């Protein structure tokens, strides 16, 4: 745990996810404090993405429970968890491909601002929505691409839209699934800066293979292996742990 004792943002209690005979997540328990920067690492197939899918509500649990800011959300649908302050990005770009970047972000912002059921005014005619969209585009560095259809963006730019969509709903807890995978070095640097600049009270969980990113961002690392928590600790502790090297080397 980080030095500052804080309120608990997320509690995962003995969570299991079974895909047929495979226990993709086989009984994971962990707690993440408010404002923590938590990295989740592990070899391919360890269950990191599945774990995020369970926390965000994209997949139902087989057993166990999930508590978000004190509220049990185990059976709460994904869209409601977003409204409780939980937001996520996807490992594989998961965007509105036929719409321009601006409209992609606008969809997330108008939901947050509560104007989505308005049938009578043009979507672009809400100043508070527009200001927020422009702010987020600026933050992720896509202002100059606002009018481009997402399908025509580079892969790295699409990754930035992923993050923009997640930020648009002003999350209290943010789950990033390999945000820098496929990004250029410049784009990765920019993403690190962006993440470092997030509000200090925001709780962050990040799945990342790039150790440079993990070390730059996280204050605590959980290592998943075969659907279970292998170990956890500060970046320095985890780096020194021979078991961690073993599972990574064993896979390679």
């Amino acid at each position, binding site marked *: 745990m980080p030095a500052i004792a804080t309120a608990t943002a997320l509690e995962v209690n003995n969570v299991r996810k079974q895909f047929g005979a495979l226990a993709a997540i086989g009984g994971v328990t962990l707690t993440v404090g408010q404002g923590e920067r938590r990295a989740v690492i592990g070899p391919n197939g360890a269950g990191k993405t599945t774990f995020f899918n369970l926390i*965000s509500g*994209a997949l139902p649990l087989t057993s166990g429970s999930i508590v978000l800011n004190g509220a049990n959300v185990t059976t709460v*649908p*994904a*869209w*409601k968890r*977003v*409204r409780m302050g939980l*937001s*996520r990005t*996807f490992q594989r770009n*998961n*965007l*509105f*491909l*036929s*719409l321009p970047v*601006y*409209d992609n972000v*606008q*969809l*997330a912002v*108008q*939901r*947050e601002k509560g*104007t*989505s*059921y*308005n*049938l*009578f*005014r*043009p*979507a*672009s005619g*809400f100043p508070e*929505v*527009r200001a927020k969209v*422009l702010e987020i*585009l*600026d933050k992720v*560095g896509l*202002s*100059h691409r*606002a*009018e481009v259809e997402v399908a025509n963006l580079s892969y790295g730019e699409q990754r930035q839209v992923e993050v923009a*969509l997640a930020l*648009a*709903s002003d999350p209290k807890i943010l789950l990033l699934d390999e945000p820098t995978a496929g990004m250029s070095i410049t784009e990765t*640097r920019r993403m690190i*800066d962006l993440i470092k600049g997030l509000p200090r009270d925001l709780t962050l969980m990040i799945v990342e293979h790039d150790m440079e990113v993990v070390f730059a961002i996280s204050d605590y690392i959980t290592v998943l292996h075969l659907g279970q928590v292998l170990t956890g600790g500060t970046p320095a502790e985890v780096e020194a742990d021979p078991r961690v090297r073993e599972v990574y080397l064993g896979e390679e």
Partner: protein
Amino acid sequence: MSIDNINKPKAEIADSNVAATSVMGRLIQGRFATGWSWAVGGVVVLALIAYPFVNPSDTFGINLLVQILIAAIFALSYDLIFGYTGLLSFGQASYYGLGGFAAGLLVARFNISNFWLSLLVAIVVASLGAAILGIFSIRTSGVYFMMLTLALAQMLFSLASKWDFTGSSDGVTFTRPEFSIFGFSLTDLVPFYLFVLFAFVVCFLVLTMVIRSPFGQALKGIRDNENRMTAVGYQTRNFKLVAFIIAGAIAGLAGGLNALSNGFVGANTLNWVNSGAVLVMVLLGGKGTLVGPVVGAFFTIWLQSQIQGSGSSIPLGNYTLADRWLSVLGIIFMVFVLFAPNGLVGLGKSLVRSKLVKNLLGRVK
């Protein structure tokens, strides 16, 4: 690191300037493009208004235009579901049929002969029908959604074709309610035509407004990626249901106008063939645009009238071309799905972009 920090604010300032110019650019370009579309649309509507005064004796043509406009309203309603929300429903005929029966039965069974009331009841009954059928259909997706909308629609169809109240297989004939505006009787062809044109323009404008609204954006989001909509906090089911109800209301208006235009409504209006026909119209014209369904309705109804007029003399095996209207629709459907998924409007757009614009720009340079 220190160089990065020095450069960063500058880069950010540059970015927000680009943002401002690009958003302005979007507005200006958008206004320019929509300005042109509105001008063209206005000219078309004026021409349609003028037509019966220029050719008062062409009752065949005016009748055909009435049918085209009604079909266009119906196709517009379906495009909200299919083109904008991405739901391949095979039940749009249900709301058209419900509207028609509501308008007709009010006269034939309840002896209330009131034009406005018939239209109002058509819209209300069709939206209620859309709400009820929608609640069931929307819980499913993909092939199941298709099958369920089809099954529910065919249930209504077989009910109407067996029930005496709805005229079973013969349909219901009724006296068209008398109504006049500015002293013109709407039972006369030309005033009725102008009224249908007015209804069409209103529907087009209402849908334009809906499509541009935040709600319309949400429908496009559902079409593109429903799962992602959920992940940014939308309860997508509600949006789909509201889209169903709006589309149902407009289809009901089209069905009501059709019944009032003929003084007749039959179970066939509920048949899946009608749902298939609007699907073809929307695909042919261009899904996800409002002009597309109108163009599609125009071509489909015009072609149908041509084939049923002259096609009855064109032999096709043991049948004539007119008997093969459904096959013709099917072939149009296949050709457009395979070769022009964005319809005539899409073809037009790519033509304009590729040749004309390049030539013009070339000349400017």
